[in-house]
């Protein structure tokens, strides 16, 4: 850092900082930098502690029986295993992704390719942002009132999956739009010059180039919905048995076990809660890492070509 020399520059610095000498300014700089580093450590400590706790206790409570048996006793006892909850969680994720991905991607295609930034797309984008900020417990209530009671589906996989789908919808919509917008314009122009129509340009070209981005969005939305509890309590309820029925039969899921079993004062229930948390953290981390690594691998060819 050079010393200030001309009177003009000096005056400027004096205006900003007041008359201070070089050494104290450097000292402030160092203190501020160190403080930021310290803050990083403070910020990461809880997360390190969380990982440590769940890896330690989760690994300790891994057993074949807990992983493969069904839960015994719901709220009061808390024993057995969690295979029903694991299967239920995966079932719900799969089902909700199946429902929301087509609609979300279609909506994203409209926003990026057809809308010309008209007022409909503005309203839709704004609403998506709002919907993404709606507390998930509110979505849970609406799912309960509409799907469980009004449609008469009862606590069921379908009611829960649709509620999760609503939760994921805005994310998928927006990431699809962003991914499509990042596709180079020259690709569309080239296809256009060859006389292809819009539908085939989107289906054969832009969607393919945007696929990695869209997949990342979908995976991130899935990882958010894996960790949700609030919207499921009143739509899926809980069941001690794995089910593949869509209607009229409650489903178990991992987050419920963490929420309820951690409040039951037996060590067996706590072991299950820890194991369920470990599985949740592992699933979420795996999805996130997969999306990052997959994204890097999938975007490479596009970059080298374009």
């Amino acid at each position, binding site marked *: 850092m050079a010393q200030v020399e001309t009177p003009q520059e000096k005056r400027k610095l004096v205006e900003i900082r007041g008359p201070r000498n070089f050494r104290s300014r450097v000292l402030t700089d160092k203190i501020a930098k160190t403080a930021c580093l310290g803050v990083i450590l403070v910020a990461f400590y809880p997360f390190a502690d969380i990982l440590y706790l769940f890896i330690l206790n989760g690994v300790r409570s891994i057993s074949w029986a807990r992983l493969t048996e069904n839960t015994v006793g719901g709220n009061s006892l808390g024993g057995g295993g969690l295979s029903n909850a694991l299967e239920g969680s995966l079932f719900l994720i799969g089902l909700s992704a199946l429902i929301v991905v087509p609609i979300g991607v279609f909506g994203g295609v409209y926003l990026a390719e057809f809308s010309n930034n008209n007022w*409909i797309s503005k309203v839709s984008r704004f609403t998506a942002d709002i919907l993404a900020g709606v507390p998930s417990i509110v979505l849970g209530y609406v799912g309960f009132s509409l799907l469980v009671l009004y449609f008469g589906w009862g606590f069921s996989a379908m009611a829960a999956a649709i509620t999760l789908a609503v939760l994921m919808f805005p994310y998928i919509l927006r990431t699809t739009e962003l991914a499509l917008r990042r596709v180079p314009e020259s690709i569309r122009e080239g296809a256009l010059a060859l006389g292809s129509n819009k539908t085939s340009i989107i289906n054969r070209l832009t969607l393919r180039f945007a696929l990695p981005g869209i997949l990342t969005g979908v995976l991130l939305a899935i990882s958010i919905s894996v960790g949700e509890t609030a919207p499921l309590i009143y739509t899926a309820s809980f069941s001690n048995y794995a089910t593949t029925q869509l209607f009229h039969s409650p489903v178990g899921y991992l987050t419920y076990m963490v929420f309820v079993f951690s409040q039951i004062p037996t060590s067996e229930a706590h072991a299950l809660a820890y194991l369920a948390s470990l599985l949740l953290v592992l699933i979420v981390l795996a999805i996130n890492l997969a999306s990052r690594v997959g994204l890097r691998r999938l975007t490479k060819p596009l970059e080298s070509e374009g």
Partner: protein
Amino acid sequence: MNQSGKHSLRVGRISHSPTLLCIVAITKFIEWERFSLAGKEPSAENNAVVPAPQFSARTSKLGDRIFRVLTLGAAFFVVALLVLLVYELIKGSDLTLAKFGVGFFSSKTWDPVTQIFGALPFIWGTLYTSVIALIIGVPISLGVAIFLSEIISRTSRIGELLSSIVGLLAAVPSVVFGLWGLFVLSPFVRDYFEVPLHVHLGAFPLFKGEPFGLDFLTAGIILAIMIIPTVSTISMEVLRAVPRSQREAMISLGGTRWETIRHSVLPYARSGLFGAIILGLGRAVGETMAVTMVIGNDPSLSTSLFHPGYTLASVIANEFTEATYPLYVSALVEIGLTLFILALIINIFARLLIWRITKSSRVRT
């Protein structure tokens, strides 16, 4: 908590067909949009914003038309969903809206036995814990964002690694935080913060009462930890959107790194950073499970950090299964409506702020 088949909810009078209404509205709308845009050529201004190639009438066939309408339906579906959501919330809370009116928000009694419902303790709990979360979480988040986007090189491997870890942390499920809060944080906070504070400064209203560990303070700390990834990720994006010339000007004047950050980067990014903080507030307000597990669940208006409380979201999560008569259910739905409105205001405000800075930076760079 609930178990399968044990629900005894009797929500009265659900004799409407909102979905049917919505479907009709959507189809009408799609038809209208299709015809109104069919003959219209895109203006030059619109083309500049989205430089998508336009097609002449010759190449745009029936297939294109159908595809377009299908995608439009999907895009507009999000609006329909939100309308449906608001409709359901208002419909569900009609009993309490009629019985208590505006007084619902200012009444501090929540007594299901005598059928008197007021939302004030929950609003207070939500705001109190969120404010604690912001006081603790914001300086830390900003420090993280400044360090990762300004102080260490962005392209360095460690910087990239740390940034992606921060992004990863945002995805940790909230019940996991709740479990950690219940078993680790709550005893820790009680033994190392609350008991000493209570012993030495117990006279202050802030530190009154016997510390249990399940209270406003623990809930606020958990929320602070949970908003850190959100706020720092968005803040990093905002800081990255600050044009380079801003920094270069300060460096050319001989400013140190910190002076550059303090006097030219932060003021420029101010509104965007504010938006990031408000979005963090939005997350704190809507957070349900982790808070429910550590806040103690007692509707109170206490100003003491050591008093158990209740939030809007956690009362819905906890009491919905116990709601045995329509008025009780309706009161909980109105709590949901309150929460929705609160989140709505916060989100709109934040989006406007962030939108302002990222828009202006896009023009400049």
